[in-house]
C-alpha cells in the first residue's frame, strides 16, 4: 500500500478549468481525473480544442489568473497545487515539474544565449555556483544529444535548427531532474525524422530519471510509440482511459474508435479517408449535460446514452465514459 502511494506522483481529481469568454466562464477542462505514477508515460490524445493543452497548463499553474479559474484538486505527492500562490508555484515549477512546449522556435528567448537559458533554471532551484551550473548545463546539452555542447552553450536560439532547439527545451525541462515532465505536443512542430529522435530521447530520459511524463498529443502514432497509459479526451472530458494496449487493441468509446479509424492505413490507397462528422463545439456553445459526443454519432439512439455519463470499468484499469459504447459496434459507420 505504501509502495503504491510512493509511486503516485500526480493525482488529479475532478479538475475543472474555466476560461472567461465575454464575461462568462466556460469549462475547457470539465471534471478530469487521472493518476500519474512513477516510470509511467501517460498520453492524453484528442482533437484540437478538446482541452488537452489547458489540462497541461493547469497542472503547472501557467494560466492567466484573471481570465481563468481552476477548480478541483491537483496533488503532487500529496501536496495540493491548486491553492498555491505564484511564489510557491515557482518553487515547484522547474524543480519538481518540468514542462516541454510545442513550438521550439518561439519557446526560447531570442536575445539570450542558449547556455544562460539552461543555467537560469538551475539558478532558482539549486545552490550551485556559476561554474557548477555551467558544468551541469554542458552535461545536459551532451545528454540531449547536442553534438558540440561547449559551442552550443554560447549560441543564440536562431543559430540552431528546430530539432536542436527542442533538445535545448528538453534540457531546460529536465535540468533539475523533475519527477514529472509535462510535454505539450513536443513533436508537433518538428518533421518526422526529428520527431522520432525526440521521442526516443524523452523515453531514454524518462527511464534514466524514473520520472513520470504526461504527454499531450493529437498524433496516435506517437501515442502507440511512447505511452504506457492513454487518456482519450473529448470536449474537456476523458472519455476513455486505459493502457496503450486497451486503447489500440480494444477501444470501447465511439470517439476512440473514430479516432483510430481516422488513421490512414497504408493498404487503403485510393479509399476515402475516414472523417469524424462535425467538429469539437466551441467552448461557449458546448452542451454541458449528457454524452458530449452524441451529436457527432447521430445514428446511435438517444436511449443508448446516459443522462449523467459515468465511468464504466471494462477491464483492468480500463474505463469508459457513458454507456453508448455498448451499442456502438452494432451501428458503426452508418
Amino acid at each position, binding site marked *: 500500500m505504501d509502495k503504491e502511494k510512493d509511486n503516485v506522483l500526480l493525482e488529479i481529481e475532478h479538475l475543472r478549468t474555466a476560461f472567461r469568454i465575454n464575461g462568462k466562464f466556460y469549462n475547457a477542462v470539465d471534471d478530469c481525473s487521472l493518476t500519474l505514477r512513477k516510470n509511467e508515460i501517460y498520453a492524453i490524445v484528442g482533437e484540437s480544442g478538446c482541452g488537452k493543452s489547458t489540462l497541461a497548463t493547469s497542472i*503547472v499553474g*501557467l494560466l492567466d489568473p484573471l481570465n481563468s479559474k481552476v477548480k478541483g484538486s491537483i496533488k503532487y505527492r500529496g501536496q495540493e497545487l491548486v491553492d498555491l500562490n*505564484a*511564489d510557491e*508555484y*515557482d*518553487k*515547484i*515549477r*522547474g*524543480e519538481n515539474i*518540468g*514542462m516541454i*512546449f510545442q*513550438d521550439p522556435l*518561439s*519557446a*526560447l*528567448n*531570442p*536575445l*539570450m544565449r542558449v547556455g544562460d*537559458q539552461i543555467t*537560469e*533554471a538551475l539558478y*532558482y*532551484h539549486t545552490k550551485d555556483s556559476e561554474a557548477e551550473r555551467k558544468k551541469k548545463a554542458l552535461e545536459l546539452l551532451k545528454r540531449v544529444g547536442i553534438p558540440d555542447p561547449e559551442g552550443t552553450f554560447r549560441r*543564440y536560439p*536562431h543559430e540552431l535548427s528546430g530539432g536542436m532547439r527542442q533538445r535545448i*527545451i528538453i534540457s*531546460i*525541462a529536465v*535540468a533539475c531532474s523533475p519527477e514529472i515532465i509535462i510535454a505539450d505536443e513536443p513533436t508537433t512542430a518538428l518533421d518526422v525524422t526529428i520527431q522520432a529522435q525526440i521521442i526516443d530521447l524523452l523515453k531514454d530520459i524518462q527511464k534514466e530519471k524514473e520520472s513520470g511524463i504526461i504527454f499531450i498529443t493529437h498524433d496516435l502514432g506517437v501515442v502507440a510509440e511512447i505511452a504506457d497509459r492513454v487518456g482519450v479526451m473529448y470536449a474537456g472530458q476523458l472519455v476513455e482511459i486505459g493502457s496503450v494496449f486497451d486503447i489500440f487493441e480494444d477501444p470501447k468509446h465511439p470517439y476512440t474508435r473514430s479516432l483510430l479509424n481516422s488513421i490512414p492505413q497504408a493498404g487503403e490507397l485510393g479509399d476515402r479517408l475516414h472523417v469524424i462528422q462535425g467538429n469539437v463545439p466551441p467552448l461557449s456553445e458546448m452542451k454541458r449535460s449528457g454524452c458530449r459526443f452524441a451529436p457527432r454519432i447521430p445514428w446511435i439512439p438517444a436511449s443508448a446514452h446516459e443522462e449523467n455519463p459515468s465511468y464504466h470499468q471494462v477491464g483492468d484499469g480500463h474505463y469508459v465514459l457513458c454507456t453508448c459504447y455498448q451499442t456502438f459496434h452494432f451501428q458503426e459507420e452508418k
Partner: protein
Amino acid sequence: MWKTILRRILLMIPQIIILSLLVFFVAKLMPGDPFSGKINPNTDPKTIEALKHQLGLYDPPLVQYGHWVQNIFRGDFGQSYTYNRPVLGLIGERAANTFWLGLLTAVLTYTVAIPLGLIAGKNEGKWPDRVIAFYNFVVNSVPPFAIYLIFLILFSFILKIFPSTGTVSASAHGFVQIFFSRIYHMILPAIAMMLSGTTAIVQYLRSGIIDNTKEDYVRTARAKGVPEKVIFRKHILRNAFLPIASSLGGTITGLLSGAIVAESIFSYPGMGQLFLQSVNSRDYSVMITLTLLFGILTLLGNLLSDIIMSIVDPRIRIQ
C-alpha cells in the same frame, strides 16, 4: 564589425555626391535670387545685373556646381549673402545651439517616455494605461507647430515664465550663470519638442511589453520557476526595448526636422532657424550646406541605428 562600419561609411560617399547634386540643382531651380525683395528697388538694374554676374549666378549650373565642389575641397563652403560672412563659421555657431537643444530634448523625451511606456504596458487596460493613452492621443492629434505656438503664447507671453527668444540672457556672467541661463532659454522649446517625440516611444514600449508578456519564451521562463519580477526585467523588458533601440538613430532626423520649426517659432538661433531663413532669402550657400549636413546626419543616424541593433539583437549582424 569595424570593417563593416568603415565600408558603410565609404558607401555613404556616392550617396552624399548624389544628394549634393540634387540639393544644388533644386536650390538653383527655385524662383528668385538673393536680391529678390532685399535690395533697394531704386537701384540701377545694371548694378544688380553686374552683381549677379560677379557672383557667378549666370554661369551654367554645372559650372556653378563645379566651382562649389572645388571650393568645398578647399574648405570654403561659400559666403552667406544675408549675413555676409563665411557659411562654415555661421553654421558652426548655430550647430552648437541646435546640438544642445537637441540633446536636452532627447534626454527629456526618454526620461518621460520610458516610464510612461512602462506604466502603460504593465497596467494594460487599467486607468493608468487609459490616462497615458489619452495623453498620447491628444499630443498626437495636435500638430507640433501648434504645440510650439501654444507653449510660446502660454508660457512666454501670458504667464511670462520663460523667455521667448535667444539662447542666453545678456546679463549672464561667468560659467555657472551662463550655463543656467542657456538651460532656461532652452527648456521651453525642449519640452514642446519632447511632447511629440514621446508618443511613438510610449506606444512602442507599451505594446512591446504587452506582446512580449504573451510570448512563448516567457511561458518557458515561468515553467522554469523564474520569479515574475525577474521575468519582467530579464525576458520581457529587454525584448520590449528592441524597437526603441532601433529608433534611436532615427531620433537625430526627428530632432532636426523638429528643430526647423521649433527654433523658428521660439526664435532660437540654431541651425533649424537658419535653414528656414536661408530658404526664404535664397541664401544658396547656407541652404545647400545645411541640407547636405542634414542629409549626412540622417545617413549617420541610420548607420547608428544599424550598429545599435546589431549590438542589442543577436539575430541581426551587420556584414
